[in-house]
């Protein structure tokens, strides 16, 4: 249950924060959630990882789909040197997921060392 709540909270706060703040506010969101909701560091890592994989992967898929992948074809060639919109969507999810996961891990360890 805590896992799911952490996941949903991390995703929601990340989304809300990014409306006003720079992209790395996802790290702050994941950190705060992990610091407040007690979970084992491994689980905190995983919940935040999944939260951002779903949020960033989902958002970029939704945007790209509405765009008929016009941009993703071009940018995947530019950045990944491969014409594959889905790979760019996956890369987007993974970038967000990694940052959030390590931020959550930091939050969980902080909670443990404070306790």
């Amino acid at each position, binding site marked *: 249950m805590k896992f799911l709540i952490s996941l949903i909270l991390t995703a929601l706060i990340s*989304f809300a924060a*990014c*409306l006003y703040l*720079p*992209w*790395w506010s*996802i*790290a702050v969101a994941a*950190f705060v959630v992990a610091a407040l909701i007690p979970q084992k*560091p491994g689980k905190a890592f995983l919940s935040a990882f999944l939260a951002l994989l779903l949020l*960033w992967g989902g*958002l*970029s898929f939704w*945007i*790209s789909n*509405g*765009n*008929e992948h*016009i*941009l*993703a*074809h*071009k*940018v995947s*060639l*530019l*950045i990944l040197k491969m014409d594959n919109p889905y790979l*760019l969507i996956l*890369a*987007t999810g993974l*970038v*967000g997921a*990694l*940052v959030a996961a*390590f*931020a959550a*891990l*930091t939050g969980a*360890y*902080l909670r*443990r*060392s404070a306790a």
Partner: protein
Amino acid sequence: MRIIPFLASAVVTGGLVTVLNTSLVLPAPLGKLLSPQHGVWQNAEPVNKSFSEDLKLPGLNGKTDVYFDERLVPHIFAEQENDAYFVQGYLHAKFRLWQMELQTFAAAGRVSEILGEKGLQHDREFRRLGMVYAAEIALAEGEKDPVIKSECDAYTAGVNAYIETLTESSLPLEYKLIGFKPEKWSNLKSFIFLKYMSYDLAAREDDFEMTNARGFFSDSVFNRLFPAIQDSLDPIIPKGTVFAPQKIFPKAPVGADSVYLNNKELVMAEASQPDRDNGSNNWAVSGSKTSTGAPILCNDPHLGLNLPSLWYELQLSVPGFNAYGVSFPGAPGVIIGYNDSCAFGFTNGGRDVREYYEIKFRDEKREEYSFNGEWKKTKWRIDTIGIKGKPDFIDSVAYVQMGNDWCPVMFDPTFSGKRTGNKKNYAVRWKAHDASNELKIFNMLNRAKNYADYQAAVTNLHTPGQNCAFACKNGDIAIRTQGEWPAKWKGQGDFVMPGTDSSYLWQGMIPQDEVPYQYNPERGFISSANQKPVDESYPYYLGRNYPPYRGIYINKRLSAMNNITPQDMMQLQTDNYDVFAETALPVFIKNMKLNELNAEEKKYFDLLVAWDKRDDVNSQAATIFDLTWNHFDDTVYNDEYAKAPAVIMQPFESSLVEGVLKDSAYPFLDNISTPQKETLADQVTAAFKSACKKAAVLASEGKLEWAKYKHTGVNHLARLAPLSRLNLPIGGGNHCINAAKADHGPSWRMVISLTAKTEAYGVYPGGQSGNPGSKFYDSFIDQWAAGKYYSLWMMTAAEKTDARVKWKMTFSK
């Protein structure tokens, strides 16, 4: 010790964020770029996006409604004229901001601020040419005119109103990719952009190259390689036209030929040059030759093909006028187009209006220079060039006064352009440095009602000089080879000239009433295709290097045509007939030593013989001809050029074909590095055999067809291939009316039939949106490549509910 895992993961997190937020480790800040709420995904425009919006903006005076049609062309209806320019600026920025920024940075010599040190050479050259100096002079002149000042102020306010709305996520894609932020627009930037067009169209010269050629070759060789007269010329103003009496009599300085022009010392500097083929076609046929009895005007300017396009299509409808056509993102008004009374279009004049003078300084400090026997004081312009990631570069450029004009010493021992080792000082006298009010032309043309209005408008055009075509609903057609042109003595400015003596300066400008023009000529049409404007009976010297071929074919076709329809004109604009091949191919066929050809070569030869001389998409013969011609040119001239200096003029394109047509014993045919004497047949056959080898390789790669061989593409302005459209299936080429070359060609095709209700067609190789994530980014390109047009819609106020209106933006204060 529990703090250790915390610290470790905190460091990892911090490191990750830093790496993904900067370009320190990865080539791009991937976190920033890929964040769906900030980065490139925000530029993925929904294909069903609505562009409708209601805006209240300070700076507007009345109400303006903008109706976008299905091609995203805005039809701007403003209660006040200046509001229309405000909205034009706003829309240019909304759809094309990055392009406006890049073009003005490039023009002003500020590329290093974006690209780092690799832009420095370009920046120094452009500043030393005096691009910003020229723009400052033009701005001062333009702002003296209250109409132009308020037009520019409104336009600038519109651009800036859009820039102010931008957030990190709504920045155009390229800002995110390259990592910089928009700068505020200013009136000066519009003038810097216009000077970029002057650079593109009126900076071409071959002074250093010709000077070295003159020094390297003997007189007789030189005159044969670079003849002053082209046999095939069919001038813009037909032969036999009587010109106004000459009022200025430029005098060649005593000894110009013998003393200076035979200088054997080589020049070691080399300037960048705009594309030699920045040309164009325009013509107008009078009602006597059309099916409806109304004149038709056609124009297709040939420029670099880029995405986003140089052009942005729009309609401006204000109380004073109603104009439709293409505009320059960066400047107010319609540039090429039509209004309710008439149509107007341009081709480049192409005359040499940029001269170099060798300056003699007193000593290395360059504080004083010799002029007319006196030591005069240098002025300095200190240029601070910002470089991304590096300290500024300070460049001090000397300015010397020659006559009344202050000219930058563009090349000096610290800067040799594309070369190294120059020890001399060369000042540049460029016509684009002179004060003139070019925006006035478009302000006046947009509202022109008749021939007199057109004439009053275009005479404001000083530089870049253009062949201005005009047609009017009252039946008038006209063309003016307009510009403020220096009145030159024969040969003036073909070479670097001495800068110590005022006798080598321009001695005056050709008076406007001596500028050649045609008004309702008897032959029923006017046309221009960058050929030499007049024949030898014109009293002033116009230089020697003009492309003759497209003009010959256009005039031949127009003379023969009658009952012309707009569809006929579209066919003519997209005609792939190669008139150069018509001239040169018989030389190959007649002189080929057939008995020396093997079976494969014979097969290619048969293709040439059977060729209809059309550079069509799938023509293999067009490729074989081009290969043969290039090899022939090399075979004939390479021996003469073997020991030539690096900076040297190559023979004019027409020299070789006219040379061998006139004289089958053309002296250059012999290879001077072999003991035997080569003949025309030897060289033609040798060239053809080399061409066949290349053709066989191309055939094995499946690239022998003309379109695949020449690979026309529309490149993204930053040369990012995924944002470009390459290898388009389009025919035509250098010598065809459809002048589509590798990265250069018809940048806007337009056909306007001035019937009671105007019938207008147009297309450009691009799309209305500059956003690579928009479906409107390149939406016209396939239509353009296929030689098809869009029907242009001059919308009326009564058509607000027409089905073609897809979105509506409103602007008010």
